[in-house]
C-alpha cells in the first residue's frame, strides 16, 4: 500500500519525466517533422569494378528509379579498401552525357542517318560474308572478358581470320613481351600486397600519384601511420609523384636502359648481387641476330662482360643521372634486408625498346634477389580495366589464342579446336595484323595493297589514340571501298569517320567481368537499363555471328552443325540469345566465362567458376580448388609459400621457364638511341600522357563536370627557360609541330608537371586538339607497341590569347 507522500512523489516524478520528454520532443521535433524523409530510401546498392584504369578498384553503385544516383568506395574491396580517386567517385556520371548514342546510324550521302538494328546487323554480316578475309576486328582492354572472348571465338574460331587486335597493343604489349622473355609466361608474379610491405618503391617513368592514385596512396599513406617508405622517382619530368619522392632521378628520354645496366654492373662488380638466388633460379640472355623474342643464351661471364662498360660515369654521360645516384640505386638493390618494389606503366611500355627495358628491370630484381618475397617485386601496371583480363588472358591479339596460346603453335590450335568443338584445321596458323599494320592496311587503297576493307571497332577510340593519326586514321577518308563500323557510347573522333555507328551499353548497363593489373578477375551485374536502343557489345558480336550462321557461313557452325554461341538453359533448350529480347533470359556472361575458363589451366592461370566471382570482390589467379571445395586465390606467383604450383622445397620455381629448367632469364640489352631525336629543325622532346582527372581520350570524363572543370583542355607543359627563349608567356598559344603534324595548344609554365629544358608534355585526352597527329608510329620490334613518349617537335608562339 502506498502512503500519500509516496503517491505524491511518484506522480510528481512521472509528470516531470513526461514534461521533459515532451520538451525534448518539441525542441528536436520542430525541424525534423517538416523535413522530408531520408533521401536514401529506395536506393539499391551493388558492387562493380570502376570503369576506368587498370587498378581495379571496386565501387558500390547506388541505383534509384533505374538511374545511378551515387557512388561509394567499396570498403570490402582489398584493392582500394573503400577509397577511390576523383574519377572513381564520379564514375556514375559517365552514363549521363546528353549526347549518348541511342540508335544505329548508317552513312548515306555523307550523313549518318538512323536505321534499325536488323538492318545494321544485315549490313555487317553481308560485308563480312562477301570477303571474310578482308575483315578485321579492333577491340579493347576495356572489353569485358566475355565480350573479348566472344570476339576472339567469332574471329579465330568462326571466320578463321586472325585480324583481331586490341588497343592494348598501344598500352601494354611491351610488358607482355617482357614477361614472356623473362619468365616464359605473362603477367606479374607479385600483387598490390607488395605495396603494403615494400621499404623502397621505385617508379620507372611512372606517375602513379595521377595515373594510379589509389595504389599510390596505398603506399604513401603508410607514412602517416609512422612507417617509412622510400620513394625513388626515375623520370623525365617532375610530376605529382616527384613531390612525395626522396630521390628524383631525371634521365634523358630513352636512356633508362643505361640506368638498369648501370645497376646490374655495380651489383656484379661489388659482388652484392644475390649469388645464391641467381645460381638456383636464373639464366642469362642477350639479343640474337636476327633479333628474336627469346634471344640467345649466354653465360654469367658473358653477361658480366656485357654490362661492364656501364660504369656509373658512363651511365651519367648517357642518361644525365649523376653517377652518385646510380651508386645509390645499386647500393639499395645490394641490400637483401630491404624490400624493393618497382612500378611502371606507359613510360617503359610505350618505348621503341619497350621489351628490352621491361626485361632489364625484371633482370635487376632477379639479379639482386628482390623477387618472390612480399614487398620485393617488379610489377607492371596497366592503364585499362581489363587489359590483363580480356587482352592478355583471353588473348585477343593477332598472334594469340585463349589462355596464353599462340596461333603459330599447332598443339595450341588443336586444343582450341577441341575446346570449341571445331573441325580440325579451322584455326588459321598465320598471325593476323597487329594494330599499326591493321590500320595501315585499312587506310591503304585496295589497289595499293591495303588488304583490310571492313573494320569493326568496339569499346575504343582509335581516331584519337592511334599514333601519327594523319597516316593511320585520317587517310581512310575518300576511300569509298573501305567500311568502318564503330560500336560506342558517345560520338568520338572515331565515329566521325564511321560508316556505321552502333550504340552500345556501357559499364553497369550490362553484365561484365574485368581483369585488373594484379591478376584479379572481377564480376558485376547489370544495374540500370541502357538508354534508347543501345545494346551490349557482346550481343552485337553474337547477333552478327548468328546472321552469318543464317546466311550459311560455315564457320559459324561447330563440327556438329551447332551455332558457335550455342547457349542453353537449364532444361537444355536453346536460348535465342542473338535476339535482343531474349539476351537477358540467361546470363550470357556466365555461359561464356564457364566455357572460357577451361582454357585457363594450360599456363596455370586457373579461374574459378563464375559464382565465386559473384561472391568476391575479385579473385587473383591461379584460383585453385581446395579439398574442402573452396577456391583459393594466389597472391605471390612462383613463390613456394603461396603458389600451390611450386614444387615443395624449391622456394622459387619459374615453372613456365622458356628454358624448361625452372629458371628465369636475366637479360642484357644495350642502350641504343631512339629512332627520332631532337635536332636543329625539331629541337624539343615531346612526351604525351594522361592527367589525373581524365581517362584516355576523355570521351567519358570530359562529360563529367567536376572533372572537366578541373582540366578543361589540353595544354603544353613548358620549361620556364625554354618559354623565355621562345618569348612565350603562360597561357599563350603555341604551335607544337613534328614532321608528321601540328596542333596549337596554350602553354602552361610551372604547371602540374615540370619538364626539364628541351622537353615538353601534352596530354592526349582533348578531342579538339589531337596530339597524336604529331606523334610517330615507330614501334618496338617484338611487341609492336608504338612510342608515344618521345618524338622531336618544334614550338612556335602563335598568339597571346588561347581563345
Amino acid at each position: 500500500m502506498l502512503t500519500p507522500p509516496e503517491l505524491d512523489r511518484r506522480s510528481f516524478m512521472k509528470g516531470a519525466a513526461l514534461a521533459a520528454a515532451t520538451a525534448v520532443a518539441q525542441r528536436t521535433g520542430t525541424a525534423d517533422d517538416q523535413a522530408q524523409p531520408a533521401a536514401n530510401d529506395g536506393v539499391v546498392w551493388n558492387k562493380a569494378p570502376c570503369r576506368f584504369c587498370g587498378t581495379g578498384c571496386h565501387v558500390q553503385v547506388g541505383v534509384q528509379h533505374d538511374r545511378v544516383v551515387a557512388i561509394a568506395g567499396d570498403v570490402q574491396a582489398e584493392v582500394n579498401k573503400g577509397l577511390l580517386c576523383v574519377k572513381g567517385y564520379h564514375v556514375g556520371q559517365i552514363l549521363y552525357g546528353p549526347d549518348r548514342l541511342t540508335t544505329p546510324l548508317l552513312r548515306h550521302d555523307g550523313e549518318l542517318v538512323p536505321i534499325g538494328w536488323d538492318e545494321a546487323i544485315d549490313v555487317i554480316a553481308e560485308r563480312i560474308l562477301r570477303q571474310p578475309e578482308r575483315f578485321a576486328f579492333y577491340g579493347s582492354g576495356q572489353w569485358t572478358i566475355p565480350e573479348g572472348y566472344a570476339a576472339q571465338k567469332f574471329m579465330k574460331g568462326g571466320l578463321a581470320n586472325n585480324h583481331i587486335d586490341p588497343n592494348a597493343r598501344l598500352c601494354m604489349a611491351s610488358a607482355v613481351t617482357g614477361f614472356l622473355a623473362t619468365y616464359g609466361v605473362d603477367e606479374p608474379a607479385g600483387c598490390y600486397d607488395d605495396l603494403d610491405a615494400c621499404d623502397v618503391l621505385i617508379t620507372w617513368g611512372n606517375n602513379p600519384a595521377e595515373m594510379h592514385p589509389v595504389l599510390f596512396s596505398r603506399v604513401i599513406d603508410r607514412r602517416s601511420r609512422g612507417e617509412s617508405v622510400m620513394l625513388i622517382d626515375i623520370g623525365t619530368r617532375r610530376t605529382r609523384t616527384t613531390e612525395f619522392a626522396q630521390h628524383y632521378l631525371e634521365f634523358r628520354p630513352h636512356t633508362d636502359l643505361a640506368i638498369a645496366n648501370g645497376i646490374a654492373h655495380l651489383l656484379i662488380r661489388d659482388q652484392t648481387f644475390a649469388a645464391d638466388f641467381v645460381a638456383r633460379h636464373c639464366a642469362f640472355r642477350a639479343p640474337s641476330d636476327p633479333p628474336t623474342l627469346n634471344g640467345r643464351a649466354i653465360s654469367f661471364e658473358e653477361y658480366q662482360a656485357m654490362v661492364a662498360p656501364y660504369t656509373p660515369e658512363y651511365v651519367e654521360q648517357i642518361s644525365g643521372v649523376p653517377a652518385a645516384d646510380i651508386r645509390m640505386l645499386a647500393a639499395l638493390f645490394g641490400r637483401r634486408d630491404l624490400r624493393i618494389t618497382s612500378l611502371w606503366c606507359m613510360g617503359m611500355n610505350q618505348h621503341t625498346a619497350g621489351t628490352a627495358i621491361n626485361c632489364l628491370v625484371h633482370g635487376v630484381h632477379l639479379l639482386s634477389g628482390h623477387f618472390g618475397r612480399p614487398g620485393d617485386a617488379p610489377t607492371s601496371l596497366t592503364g585499362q580495366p581489363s587489359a590483363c583480363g580480356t587482352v592478355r588472358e583471353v588473348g585477343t591479339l593477332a598472334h594469340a589464342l585463349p589462355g596464353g596460346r599462340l596461333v603459330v603453335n599447332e598443339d595450341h590450335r588443336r586444343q582450341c579446336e577441341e575446346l570449341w568443338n571445331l573441325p580440325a584445321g579451322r584455326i588459321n596458323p598465320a598471325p593476323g595484323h597487329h594494330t599499326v599494320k591493321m590500320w595501315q592496311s585499312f587506310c591503304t587503297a585496295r589497289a595499293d595493297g591495303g588488304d583490310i576493307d571492313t573494320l569493326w571497332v568496339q569499346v575504343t577510340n582509335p581516331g584519337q589514340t592511334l599514333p601519327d593519326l594523319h597516316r593511320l586514321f585520317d587517310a581512310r577518308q575518300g576511300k569509298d571501298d573501305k567500311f568502318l563500323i564503330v560500336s560506342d557510347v558517345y560520338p568520338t573522333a572515331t565515329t566521325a569517320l564511321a560508316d556505321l555507328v552502333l550504340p552500345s551499353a556501357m559499364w553497369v548497363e550490362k553484365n561484365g567481368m574485368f581483369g585488373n593489373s594484379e591478376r584479379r578477375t572481377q564480376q558485376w551485374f547489370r544495374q540500370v537499363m541502357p538508354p534508347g536502343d543501345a545494346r551490349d557489345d557482346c550481343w552485337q558480336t553474337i547477333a552478327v555471328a548468328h546472321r552469318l550462321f543464317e546466311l550459311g557461313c560455315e564457320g559459324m557452325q561447330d563440327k556438329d552443325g551447332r551455332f558457335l554461341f550455342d547457349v542453353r538453359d537449364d532444361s537444355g533448350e536453346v536460348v535465342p540469345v542473338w535476339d535482343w529480347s531474349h539476351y537477358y533470359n540467361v546470363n550470357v556472361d556466365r555461359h561464356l566465362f564457364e566455357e572460357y575458363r577451361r582454357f585457363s589451366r594450360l599456363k596455370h592461370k586457373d579461374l574459378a567458376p563464375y559464382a565465386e566471382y559473384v561472391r568476391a570482390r575479385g579473385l587473383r589467379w591461379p584460383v585453385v580448388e581446395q579439398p574442402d571445395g573452396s577456391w583459393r586465390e594466389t597472391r605471390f606467383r612462383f613463390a613456394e609459400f603461396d603458389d600451390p604450383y611450386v614444387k615443395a622445397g624449391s622456394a622459387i620455381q619459374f615453372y613456365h621457364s622458356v628454358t624448361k629448367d625452372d629458371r628465369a632469364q636475366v637479360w642484357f640489352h644495350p642502350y641504343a638511341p631512339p629512332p627520332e631525336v631532337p635536332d636543329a629543325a625539331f629541337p624539343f622532346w615531346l612526351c604525351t600522357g594522361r592527367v589525373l582527372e581524365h581517362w584516355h581520350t576523355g570521351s567519358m570524363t570530359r562529360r563529367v563536370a567536376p572533372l572537366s572543370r578541373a582540366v578543361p583542355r589540353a595544354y603544353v607543359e613548358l620549361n620556364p627557360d625554354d618559354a623565355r627563349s621562345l618569348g612565350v608567356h603562360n597561357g599563350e598559344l603555341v604551335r607544337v609541330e613534328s614532321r608528321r603534324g601540328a596542333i596549337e595548344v596554350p602553354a602552361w609554365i610551372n604547371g602540374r608537371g615540370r619538364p626539364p629544358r628541351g622537353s615538353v608534355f601534352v596530354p592526349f585526352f582533348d578531342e579538339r586538339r589531337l596530339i597524336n597527329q604529331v606523334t610517330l608510329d615507330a614501334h618496338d620490334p617484338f611487341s609492336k607497341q608504338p612510342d608515344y613518349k618521345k618524338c622531336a617537335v618544334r614550338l612556335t608562339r602563335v598568339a597571346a590569347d588561347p581563345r
Partner: protein
Amino acid sequence: MSMDANDTMSRSALPPRSLHIVCTIAIGVALVGYFVGQGGNRTRPDVDRSAPVPIGTAQPALSYTELRSRSLSPNRDFTSDLARLASRPVADTLRTDLAARLQSLADRALRRSYNGAPPVIPHPVDTTSPAACLACHGDGLRVGERSASRIPHDRFLSCLQCHAESRTGVPGGDIPPPTSTFVGLPAPQSGARAYQGAPPQMPHTSWMRGTCLACHGPTGMPGMLTSHPERQNCRQCHASSATLDQAIVGSGPLFHSANEDAP
C-alpha cells in the same frame, strides 16, 4: 637650469649684451630639452612596462573582419587569397533551424555531384602538399564570415586524389563545363527517429565522415550543429546505418543479388 638663469638675472644688474647671451643660451637649452622630452625616451630605464595600461587609452588592434577593408600602408597593394574564396555563412547558433539547414544543404550540394561525393576544392591550389591543406582544414578555421571546414576523415597524404580542383591553372580554362543528365542522390535533410524524442540516427555513412564535429561542431554549417557539443561519444546515442556503412558481413556478400543468374 632655466630657473638658475632667471635667478641670476633678477639678482645682479648685468649689461644688456650679457643678458642677451644668457637669454639665448637659456632659450636654446629649454628648446632642446623640450624636443628631447617630446620625442620620448625609448631607452629610459625607469619605465615600468608591466604596469597595466589604463582602460580606453590603448591603440585598438584591427579585427580580422576589418583586415580586408583597411589599407595598411606597407601592404596596401596586397590582395589576400582569402578575398577570392567564396564566403559561406558561419553558424553562430546551436539552435536547430530548418531554413538554415536547407540553405546549408543547398550550399553543400553545390560542391558535390551527389551526396557522399568528396567535395571539390572551391579555391585555387598552388601547393599540393598535405601540410598545405591541413594548415586550414586540419582543425577547421573561421576568418570573418569565411570558414574552412575541418577534415572529417583520417589524414591521408594525397588530398588531390579524391578532391577535384574546381579551378586549376590550365590556361584558357574558363570553358563552360559539360552538361549532363546525371541527377545525384540528394543529401538527407534529417536522420530517422525510432519515435518522437528518440535521438536521430545517422542518415549518412560514417565511412570517411567519422569526425562528427567536423560538420556538426563549431566550424560546421548553420542548421547542422549539435545542440550538445559537450558530449564526446556521438555514437553512444546516434546509431549508424549498417547499409550505408557497408557493414553487414554474413554468409554471403553484401549488396549482391540473391540469384547469381539475375541480370
